[in-house]
């Protein structure tokens, strides 16, 4: 009996002990934020007027997390890690801000890792969010109000950028008069799908660049069977494809567009197109998608697509492109910058061109979103210095000026795509295109523009002149070509995109609101359903599976989403 009592005591004691530890760890969190809030900060802002580029008197530490790709520029010092990014040295010098990473992971793991961080409530000060996560954190009241910080600290250039669309994107992230995030929006035409094709393979086989799906099929078949690389081996296939069908690259968005099908803008969720009577319909379940799928199925059977595409992620797809196994890929303007430049450096004969996507009869229209803002920057409500985020955005834009050109180079350890929060000039690529072409046409040796776009324009101008002169002193042929052909060449990535924009060969994704309730809840389920059904159809399941898919999609939440999206659309029309 006594024994039993002791046991009970032990049990009770340890249970309460664990309860206490659980509570106290929460208490600690709160304690940290409230007690360590610097009292000097408030006084200071009262005395000195806010300076967008001002230096904090005391060092300010902000925490971040990062999903990163390898540095794009091959001249970057080997083995450099994100926290060694040279931008941070300058940031410390100029503004006395220290950046501390809570964690960094390769970008392919970012989404999962960030979900985990959200689940445990362990979030950094500066948050890089997609619209879905923004919506979730907003709902849970986790985001700091940036209205004042933006008003007081945003540099004139940042304000200019944010107003360039009439303040439209900013308004999307404003709730009840509180600015909750700064959207990193860009020219939506950057999403335009192009067909990238190996020109040297076409020449080897005496073929023309395709303008229709039928011609594309013939070219792709020839690329499979007729040894386009002339190495006497049967080691090539036609069109690159990877397991994620609608993605940010190496996917089949453009191919579907060729059939007049507009399934997705790349996020695995459906795109929304107008059906004439002022209603939006989900592109993912339209009959044109079925036609495109049955074509893909026949291409899979005759070897135009890789037999094991369902096992390939984007890295494997890129490997095939760079190692010369495949000569056709759908994608956006930036391919020459990466990964096609790697192929050019590997194979001196390789030559890539961009053409408008082939359609059923002649070049087709590409799906373009109304707003391209895949990510926004917000600040954790618990952060001590929300304005530091705004200052860091100012800092990054400032680094584009002429005076930093010599210092701010990849070989000195500056990795631009690791720096967050990073807001671009929404018209950056267009500015580069016009300024570089102006200078090239006038045979200038220097570019004349002198503002925060200087570095970007000057870099492309240098790469372009080096490439055209065959000069590889400072960078490889691939690097020079990639910079030039993606951004400046008149027949290159952005050049071709501009032509498509001017000729009106595009269809808009009309939905640009924040994800709806059902999208947040059921999105992943619908995504899984789509991946599973489409992959199976391409690999040979009956094409009637598509009708089953449509029925399931609608009943599993698709109908609700359609109603919600149309309710949103009705609101927009009223405004």
């Amino acid at each position, binding site marked *: 009996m006594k024994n039993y009592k002791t046991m009970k005591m032990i049990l009770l004691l340890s249970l309460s002990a664990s309860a206490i530890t659980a509570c106290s760890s929460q208490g600690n969190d709160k304690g940290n934020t409230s007690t360590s809030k610097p009292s000097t900060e408030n006084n200071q802002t009262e005395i000195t007027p806010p300076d967008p580029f001002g230096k904090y008197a005391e060092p300010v530490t902000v925490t971040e997390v990062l999903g990163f790709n390898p540095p794009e520029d091959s001249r970057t010092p080997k083995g450099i890690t994100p926290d060694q990014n040279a931008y941070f040295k300058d940031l410390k010098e100029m503004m006395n801000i220290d950046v501390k990473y809570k964690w960094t992971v390769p970008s392919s793991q970012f989404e999962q890792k960030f979900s985990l961080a959200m689940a445990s409530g362990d979030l950094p000060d500066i948050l890089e969010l997609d619209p879905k996560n923004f919506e979730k954190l907003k709902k849970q009241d986790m985001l700091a109000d940036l209205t004042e910080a933006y008003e007081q600290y945003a540099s004139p250039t940042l304000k200019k950028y944010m107003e360039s669309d009439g303040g439209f994107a900013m308004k999307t992230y404003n709730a009840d008069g509180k600015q909750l995030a700064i959207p990193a929006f860009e020219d939506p035409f950057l999403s335009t799908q192009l067909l990238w094709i190996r020109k040297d393979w076409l020449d080897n086989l005496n073929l023309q660049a395709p303008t229709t799906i039928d011609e594309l099929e013939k070219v792709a078949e020839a690329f499979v069977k007729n040894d386009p690389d002339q190495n006497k081996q049967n080691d090539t296939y036609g069109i690159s494809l990877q397991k994620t069908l609608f993605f940010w690259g190496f996917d089949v968005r453009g191919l579907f567009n060729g059939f007049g099908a507009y399934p997705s803008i790349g996020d695995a969720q459906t795109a929304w197109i107008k059906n004439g009577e002022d209603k939006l319909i989900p592109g993912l379940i339209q009959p044109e998608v079925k036609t495109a799928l049955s074509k893909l199925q026949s291409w899979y059977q005759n070897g135009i697509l890789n037999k094991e595409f369902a*096992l390939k992620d984007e890295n494997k797809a890129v490997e095939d492109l760079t190692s010369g196994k495949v000569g056709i890929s759908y994608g956006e303007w930036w391919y020459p910058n990466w990964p096609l430049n790697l192929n050019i450096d590997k194979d001196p004969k390789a030559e890539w061109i961009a053409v408008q996507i082939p359609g059923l009869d002649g070049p087709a229209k590409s799906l373009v979103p109304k707003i391209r803002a895949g990510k926004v920057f917000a600040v954790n409500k618990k952060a001590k210095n929300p304005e530091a985020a705004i200052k860091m955005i100012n800092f990054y834009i400032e680094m584009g000026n002429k005076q930093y050109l010599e210092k701010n180079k990849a070989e000195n350890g500056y990795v631009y795509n690791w720096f967050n929060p990073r807001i671009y000039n929404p018209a950056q690529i267009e500015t580069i295109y016009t300024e570089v072409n102006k200078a090239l046409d006038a045979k200038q040796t220097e570019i004349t523009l002198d503002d925060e776009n200087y570095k970007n324009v000057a870099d492309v101008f240098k790469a372009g002149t080096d490439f055209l002169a065959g000069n590889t002193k400072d960078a490889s042929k691939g690097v020079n070509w990639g910079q030039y052909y993606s951004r400046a060449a008149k027949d290159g990535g952005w050049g071709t995109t501009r032509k498509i924009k001017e000729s009106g060969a595009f269809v808009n994704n009309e939905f640009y609101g924040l994800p709806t309730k059902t999208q947040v809840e059921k999105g992943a389920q619908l995504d899984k359903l789509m991946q599973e059904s489409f992959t199976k159809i391409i690999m040979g399941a009956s094409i009637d599976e598509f009708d089953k898919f449509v029925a399931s999609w609608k009943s599993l939440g698709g109908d609700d989403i359609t109603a919600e999206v149309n309710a949103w659309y009705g609101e927009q029309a009223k405004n």
Partner: protein
Amino acid sequence: MRTLKKEYVLHLMLLPGVIATLIYAYGPMAGLVMAFQQFEPLSGFFKSEFVGFDNFRYVFALPDFGQVLWNTIIIAIFKMILFLLVPLILALLLNEVTRKWFSGFIQSAIFLPFFLSWTVLGGVVIELFSLSGPVNGLLTEIGFQPIMFMLDNDWFRGIVIGSDVWKGMGYNMIVMLAAIVGINATLYEAAEVDGAGKWKQVMHITLPGISPILILLGVLSLGGILNAGFEQILIMYNPTVYEGADIIDTFVYRLGMFSQQFGPAAAIGLFKSVISLGLVSITYYAAYKLNNYRIF
């Protein structure tokens, strides 16, 4: 009481283990409350809304749930049976090997993959069975059509089960070998005198001798019957084989991590634990009745 006084040092030594168990095994159980909440992580347990059995209703109504449950059970049952059978056969065979160095070498070789993680082995398996991999190379060499093992529902399940058995069989084999070695050698001598051959000796001495261990391993593996191998399947599967390979754990992972539906994910987890507890209790009772076998 007197014994407690005498052995209090021994009981003291038990204390860290008990505390660790309470903190790491019983403490987190409080988290199960999530299964009955519309859980919002940043609001925490105290502010999230209680929804009763809504999460369970939601989960059981999901169209994939039946398929996922069936996959889990079928994969787990095959793994359980093979995890007893294959190591047993290996142990019996190895026991007959008289050259010590050879037996040791084989044991190490079979044990080795147990120490590698699925992150490594998953990649190896995918490469082995890819279209251009050695297995298909061999098949085409002897006149078969190449098979897309990793993209075919029928083959994929087999590969999942086979590769898991291959990875883990060394462990059970060592346990069984140890049990076999522990059998009194005089029994074999007596049997030999009575004219029993190797086969009869195995049937009448070795097998009955190690049956408690076999039952223990069986009971233990039953407890994990609904663990069909999360890490392994997560690394090896792809959308084409969801139909035959998506198990409860991978399903929960996608539900929790990608849709961030923590409530429903916790509900499935709780469901799984309750079923497992039931199964263990039943087998444990059966083992006691049939073989008078007890752990405590």
